[in-house]
Structures are given as C-alpha cells and as structure tokens.
C-alpha cells in the first residue's frame, strides 16, 4: 500500500514538474529561432537596439521620444481623451480591475522622484520606487529585454513632460490577486530579467525586428496566448488571444489563420498605417498601437518587424480561412436561410450606406468588409466591439471614422447585426447573444467616452 502511495506521489510530482517545466520553457519569446544568442556587447552585427541610424546624433530626449513610441507606453498609460501618460486606464481582468499609473514627472502622484535605478527596476523587474510589486499588466517581463540606455532615454523624455497631478486609482481585485507580495513567485517563474540577446544565426535586420517586437513593442502581450498562470505561452507564440475584450489575431506564418497569405507589402502597410487593402484596418487596441506607436517608426524599422514576423513558426488557430469574394449586390442573395432578420434590418438602416450589400465600400477602402479578419471571426468579437466603439483614428492618410453605435443600440441589436455581418461577409456566422455583447462591453470598458459625433 505504502508503495502504491509512493508511486502515486512520484507520478504527481513528475507531472507537476513536467508541467512547471513546460510553463518555464514557454517563457522565452525567441527560443523558436534556435541559433546562438550572445550578449549584446559581444554582438558584431551592428546596432540593433536604440534609435535608428538617422536619429543616432539626436539628443537624449529626442531619442527617448522615438523609443517611447516604439515601446508604446502611451496607449496604456492614458485614458481615452485624457492627458497622455497621466494613467488611469482600466484593465478589466477576470479577477478584477487594475488601473495604469501616472508616469508624468509629478513628484507626489507620478514618477518625479524616481532615480534611474528605481526607473530601471520598474521597467525590468516590475518593482515600484516604494518596493511594492507591479502587476504584469505592466509588461515588464517583455521590457526586461530593453537595454538600460533605451529605458533611461525614455525616462529622460518622460521627465520633460509637464507634471500632471493624477493620484492612482484604487485597484479592485479579489483575494488572492490583491496580494502584491505573491507576485514574487510569478516573477521568479516568468521574468528572467535578462536583457536582449541577439541571435548570431539571424540577420541584423531580424535581430532589430526581434528587439522592436519583443523588448519594445511587446506584441506578444496581446497576440500570444497565456498559460494558466497568465504568463505568455510561447509554445503558441503569436497564435492570437483575447485581450481587453478584443481579439488580437494570429500573426504567425500560418496561411489560413495567420499572416502566411499576406505579402510583405501588406504587412508593412498594416503596421505603418493601420490598413492594408483587402485585409481591413486596425481598430480598438491595435488602432491605438498603430496611432501611438507603429506609425512613428522609420521605414527601416517597420521592414525589420516584417522580417521578424515572417520568421514566426506557423501555428493554426481556430479561425476559418478568410473569405475574399464580395457578397452579392442584392440583400436577397448570399446567405438567406441563416440570416437574422433583425440584423439585416439594422444593417440596411445603419451600415449599408457605407459598407454596401456587397461589403465593398463605395466610400473608402477603409470601410470595405470583404477579406477583413474581424468579419471572418465566427466569434464576431471585434465586429461587435467596432460597432459599439466605432473607429476614430487620425492617420497620415487622413481621418478614419465610423460612428460608435454602442450608446444608441441595445445589446440584442448589436448581437443581431454582428451575427448578420459575419454570416453575410465572412466565413461563418456568429451566434452572439445580447448577454455576450454586454460582457464584451464590460471587458473593454473605460471611463465613459463622451466623444460626440462631429456636428456643424
């Protein structure tokens, strides 16, 4: 009997260790590349960290401005319509709500008293000046790869901003998640706190792209699925995940559900402008990433990101292959049996004038639905979010606008139109309920956004 118990315990321990090892191995975002990583100072392939060549002679603050865009600090440290970097952005997690902090140089409520060492500890280790641990909503496990010089250039830029008095909002987390001390365990397991190590088996351009994607842009924080401990599971690197109520798509090389069918030019345009013809445009969190971060990168850096993305091993996700043919011109053709009459009615009144019954917009390529991933996602997550929140992006190509229908339409209406749109223009119709839409609203909720439609 004792022997049996002993074997049972041994099996449980082995499985637990195996699982822990599997989680542990999943933490390295660049292990897929194999190769021979070396310390940055031993790398002979040229500068792959810091600013691009054309800014090499710029002063510290200018370099910091470029790098803070590359690291996209602003999107999370700013509320919609709020003062940039003053914090207060809500992260709605399954176990409660967290708020981002004020990183303007205000001495009482911001980071005005942070020394260089304290700033580096926050960026690399997730430790605040007062010694408390930050939650990994702050992507310090990614930023740990950032060089000290780059982090301090960002600090120098932040310290030129006008200090904003914005006290931290009270987090609302349930036990045990409200015990910050427990994060020591998480950090031990998932944040090796090591700087970026270039891979000598790869080109300098790949290494630059890797640095920008992993240490700065922290793409994986949204695009890589998480393990049961809420750390990134790089066994399925960039295979797509649901974050903040929006779907971050599969950006691996998978042909059906990733970027395998996109040309380099498509990826380049999507990253730099937030739109690629035939693939749709970015909205929601990726719209913010485009407008606050990626659109500021110099062309060489965007090309480096393309090179890096191209190297990500294919992982299939459960999304069907994108439909790239337009729907018929008549509302009676195409799907009929599956169509939700309520959804069709709403589409006719509110959507068809710009999106057309075919899905090919007569107004602007930004409004074309054909080939767009959101309408080919049978969960309709991003269709519903876009209907609720609208699109209001300012780009170098002009404004991209869609009204926000969330205040004017009920949850049932939004579910009906999202189901109709995915069925008519996508691979498979969604089956959202009003309850699902209410839940999506909650997950993406920020302080009520009072942005009105432009009048007069």
């Amino acid at each position, binding site marked *: 009997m004792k022997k049996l118990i002993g074997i049972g315990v041994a099996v449980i321990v082995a499985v637990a260790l195996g699982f822990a090892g599997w989680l542990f191995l999943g933490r390295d975002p660049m292990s897929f590349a194999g190769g021979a990583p070396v310390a940055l100072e031993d790398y002979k392939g040229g500068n792959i960290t810091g600013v691009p060549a054309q800014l090499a002679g710029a002063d510290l603050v200018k370099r910091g401005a470029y790098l803070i865009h590359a690291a996209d600090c602003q999107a999370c440290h700013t509320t919609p319509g709020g003062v940039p970097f003053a914090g207060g952005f809500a992260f709605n997690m399954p176990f409660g709500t967290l708020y981002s902090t004020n990183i303007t140089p205000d001495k009482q409520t911001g980071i005005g008293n942070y020394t260089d060492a304290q700033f580096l500890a926050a960026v690399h280790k997730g430790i605040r000046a007062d010694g408390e641990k930050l939650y990994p909503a702050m992507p310090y496990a990614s930023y740990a790869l950032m060089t000290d010089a780059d982090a301090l250039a960002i600090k120098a830029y932040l310290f030129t901003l006008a200090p904003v008095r914005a006290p931290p909002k009270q987090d609302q987390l349930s036990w045990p998640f409200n015990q910050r001390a427990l994060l020591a365990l998480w950090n031990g397991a998932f944040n090796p706190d090591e700087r970026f190590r270039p891979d000598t088996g790869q080109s300098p351009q790949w290494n630059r792209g890797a640095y920008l994607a992993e240490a700065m842009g922290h793409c994986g924080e949204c695009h890589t699925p998480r393990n049961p401990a809420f750390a990134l599971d790089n066994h399925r690197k960039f295979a797509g995940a649901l974050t903040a109520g929006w779907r971050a798509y599969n950006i691996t090389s998978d042909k059906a559900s990733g970027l395998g069918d996109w040309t380099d030019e498509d990826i380049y345009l999507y990253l730099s402008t937030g739109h690629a013809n035939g693939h749709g445009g970015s909205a929601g969190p990726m719209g913010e990433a485009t407008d606050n971060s990626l659109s500021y990168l110099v062309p060489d850096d965007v090309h480096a990101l393309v090179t890096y993305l191209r190297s990500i091993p294919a992982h299939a996700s459960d999304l069907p292959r994108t439909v790239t043919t337009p729907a018929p*011109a*008549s*509302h*009676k053709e195409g799907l009929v049996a599956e169509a939700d009459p309520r959804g*069709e*009615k709403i589409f*006719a*009144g*509110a959507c*068809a*004038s*710009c999106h*057309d*019954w075919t899905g090919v917009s*007569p*107004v*602007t390529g930004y409004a074309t639905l054909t080939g767009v991933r959101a309408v080919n996602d049978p969960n309709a997550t991003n269709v519903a979010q876009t209907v609720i929140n609208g699109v209001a992006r300012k780009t170098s190509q*002009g*404004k991209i*606008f869609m*009204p926000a229908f969330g205040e004017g339409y009920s949850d049932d209406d939004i579910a009906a139109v999202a189901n109709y749109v995915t069925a008519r223009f996508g691979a498979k119709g969604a089956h959202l309920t009003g309850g699902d839409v209410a839940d999506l609203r909650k997950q993406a909720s920020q302080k009520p956004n009072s942005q009105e*439609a*432009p*009048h*007069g």
Partner: protein
Amino acid sequence: MLTLTINGQSREVDAPEDMPLLWVLRDHLGLVGTKYGCGIAQCGVCTVHVGGKPVRSCQLTVGDVGTRAVVTIEAVGNTPHGAKVQQAWMEAAVPQCGYCQAGQIMSATALLDSNPNPDDSDIDAAMAGNLCRCGTYIRIRRAIKNAAAKSA
C-alpha cells in the same frame, strides 16, 4: 487642384483632398440641393450618385472620388429613372417639410437603376438608411412603385 465630373461637366475644384464631397458641392460649387443632416452617414440626406452608386457625400472625401462621375439632385432629373422618380414624387405629393427629399430621390433613383422592379423588401433594403422625420415613408414607397410601373 482637383478635377471632378459633376452632373456631366468637368469641374476644377481647389479644395483639400480630405474635404467631404458634400462641402465641395455646397460651398465650392454652389450646388446646395444636397443637404447636410447628421454628418455621420446615418440619415441619408446628403446622398448623391458616385459612379452610379448612392453614396453619403458627408463621408466621402473629395480625394477619394477619383474619376467616378458624380450626379446630384440638381441633375438627376436628366436621367430616365430620375425623371420618372421626380414625376412620381410630385404625383404622390411625397414631401412634407422636404429636407430629406433630395436624399430620398437620389436613393430611390439608384434603386431603380439597379433593380427596375423592386418589391417591398428591396425598397426597404435600399431606403432604410434614408430617414424622414415627417414620416412620409408610405408615400415614398408608393411613389417608387409608381415610378417603376412607368419604367416598365
């Protein structure tokens, strides 16, 4: 300088590319038959034809018009369906206050251009984006059917 084809004529316009076509029509070209309503493509009052399709001119930037021909309410009566729609509109005394009617007539004409014999559901699908605060919908539907009957 942009060159547009408006109502069959070539027109030169000195306007920024991101200006809505509606502004160009009303303020630059004096074609004020097309009205401004909601400004977010939700009322249909600013509808014009661009490349034969009904388009909300408040959302279409002039730079995106390209070489497509633009027809407005001022000239839609010169097209076969446009003339029949306008005649049917008068016979049914469709308008009440009239503000939305230019957009209604443009959408109705585009419908007949693509579908000369629309049934009720076709009319709903094509006209649902054109709002009428006076509630003239019943007369609009009747007038479209009358115009279609004349076309036959």
